[in-house]
């Protein structure tokens, strides 16, 4: 057996080897320094040119003019949401408005909003909630409805656990994901108490004619396979002063949206004058998504 073992004399490093190692290391360093980084670290000017490239690429793929905006968070704004449980009728129009607005995959289906049907007798009780109620007519007797999407936590467990810092809360409170940096480990999905994060198990199926061309780089641009996505309060709309798509779609006006820091806002009025609750408050996630009883 002894003959198979190689000799153990140390190999002196030749000058050529040393030079090529150094060159390789330098090349590696340059590649990383200029290569893809987390988008939040990319300087403004370079980010814009990267987004221009994306616009060209998406326009070509989907056969229509696509814009990818990089509108940053405005000062003095923290977005918050309020939903009137006593009004929601469980029609799920918000779910599909969200799918259309945010370029969610149609096949397989990805829904950022899940509308839960709950028993009036039990109150808010997830263990007995039904996300797949199939009623001819809504609302059903004895039931009320709790739509759940990302709660935009002020103390978000999902950003804490991410091993690569691919998800964070923006200055205006919107929790975002860098689709180009996420490694798809799904720690954030395990950490989110609201089932708000969704993984791209397969390629997103979005018919070209249904693609929404008004995109934001941290929001509704098409997600690659293998990364996580979630509700961003329609970052592409709200940073331009519009309402989220679900607010506009709700036929009964159960959904309210606004700036938490503005004392004149509807959202502040609701918080100060209505019976307000947040989901799973014992977990100290401090959602910026408030449920209230309007009547």
């Amino acid at each position, binding site marked *: 057996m002894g003959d198979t073992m190689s000799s153990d004399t140390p190999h002196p490093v030749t000058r050529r080897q040393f030079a090529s190692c150094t060159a390789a290391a330098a090349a590696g360093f340059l590649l*990383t320094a200029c290569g893809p980084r987390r988008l939040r670290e990319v300087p403004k000017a370079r980010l814009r040119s990267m987004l221009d490239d994306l616009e060209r690429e998406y326009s070509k793929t989907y056969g229509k003019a696509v814009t990818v905006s990089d509108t940053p968070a405005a000062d003095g704004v923290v977005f918050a949401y309020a939903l009137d449980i006593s009004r929601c009728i469980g029609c799920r129009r918000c779910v599909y408005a969200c799918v259309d607005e945010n370029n969610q995959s149609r096949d397989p289906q990805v829904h950022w909003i899940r509308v839960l049907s709950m028993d009036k007798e039990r109150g808010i009780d997830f263990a007995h909630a039904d996300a797949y109620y199939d009623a001819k007519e809504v609302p059903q007797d004895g039931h009320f409805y709790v739509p759940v999407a990302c709660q935009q936590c002020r103390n978000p467990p999902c950003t804490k656990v991410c091993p690569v810092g691919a998800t964070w809360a923006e200055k205006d409170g919107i929790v975002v994901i860098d689709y180009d940096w996420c*490694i798809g480990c799904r720690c954030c999905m395990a950490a989110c108490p609201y089932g708000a994060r969704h993984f791209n198990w397969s390629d997103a199926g979005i018919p070209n004619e249904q693609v929404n061309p008004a995109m934001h780089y941290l929001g509704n641009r098409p997600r690659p396979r293998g990364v996580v996505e979630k509700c961003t309060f329609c970052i592409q709309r709200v940073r331009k002063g519009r309402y989220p798509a679900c607010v506009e779609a709700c036929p009964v006006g159960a959904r309210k949206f606004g700036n938490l820091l503005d004392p004149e806002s509807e959202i502040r009025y609701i918080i100060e004058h209505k019976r307000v609750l947040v989901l799973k408050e014992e977990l100290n996630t401090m959602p910026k998504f408030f449920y209230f009883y309007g009547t």
Partner: protein
Amino acid sequence: MRGNAGYWAWVSLLLALIASGLLAYADQVTRGLGVTAMRDQVSWGFYIGNFTFLVGVAAAAVVLVIPAYVYGWRPIREIVIYGELLAVSAIVMCGLFVFVDVGRPDRVWHLAPLLGHLNFPSSLLAWDVLVLNLYFVVNFVVVTHILYRAYTGRHYSTRFVVPLVLLSIPMAVGIHTVTAFLYNGLAARPYWNSSILAPQFLASAFCSGPAILLIVLQLLRRFTSFELKNEAIWKIAELMAYAMFLNLFLHGAEAFKEYYSDTEHLLFTRYWYEGLGEHRTLVPYAWAALVLNAVAFVLFIVPATRRNWVTLNVGCVATYAGVYIEKGMGLIIPGLTPDTLGEIYVYYPTLAELRVAAGVFAVGFLVFTLMLKVAVPISLGEFQEAEVSGEGRHRAVAPAHG
């Protein structure tokens, strides 16, 4: 690497499994993780279950190292090296299981400190990456050093090895604690969010790791000239009995808390032990694990059955199977089911997952086999660079090998 027919059959089997795993993995890469049965509701499955179990195996080398180095208990001392080889192969498998689980394997370099961005100290997965790699390096260095020295006919340097081995003891506890904390820290998942999770992890690891090693050591003793005193084997079995007692006790403590307080969090424990409504998929596994663990405990605590080779090996297999069920799928699946919004999604690994996982295990076994192939003759002193005085050898006797 020469070897007999049995050896080659074994290696060919492993290579075949690796090839099948690679094919399945290639398919997973082209089609996405959708080829697995994992979905948003159960976002971790078979891969991460195996990862968790194997971190325990890697950590368990410590149960052998402690008595060997702290108390200088001779018979066990000789087998520490095998424990470390096992740790090295287990960590290789851990790394691979995480790798096959991520959605973007092309981006795992994002985890590399400096190159990427490691979210340290806030992310426990970042901690896990660091400690697992460090633990790997420490064990690898120790093993290589001991074997290299044995090969050159010298005794390993005590000044070099002992501090590293002593360091690897808290590190072994560390890797498993960090892995436990990875789940433990998630308040969204009450099944994991219990402060005895880390002790439970350690207790079960101190059963499963030695269980594998006991079988490997017996095989080595049978097929090579490796000598090992019976007492060493019995001692390890005895230690395993205590660890198993602790494991069962901690499970009991957790079950008591859940059932007696009967809060909404009981849901997950009930899903595991009783099933919820018509969803009873996990129940047979839960009870199988419990029974296997209890049987192993009895077999190892009773001196007569501990010293009987048949019952000893039955105990080893029972321990291995029991802990594998309970620490793998038994931890992950009830942790994630029902999901945070109360939905029950029944997860069963797909053929693709099974093939990839079998491939990863095969890589680990192959690494272990090849390392043994090198380590056994060297540490037996059959295989040395030059003749040196008997006293300087790793082992004094170097019996001829057929």
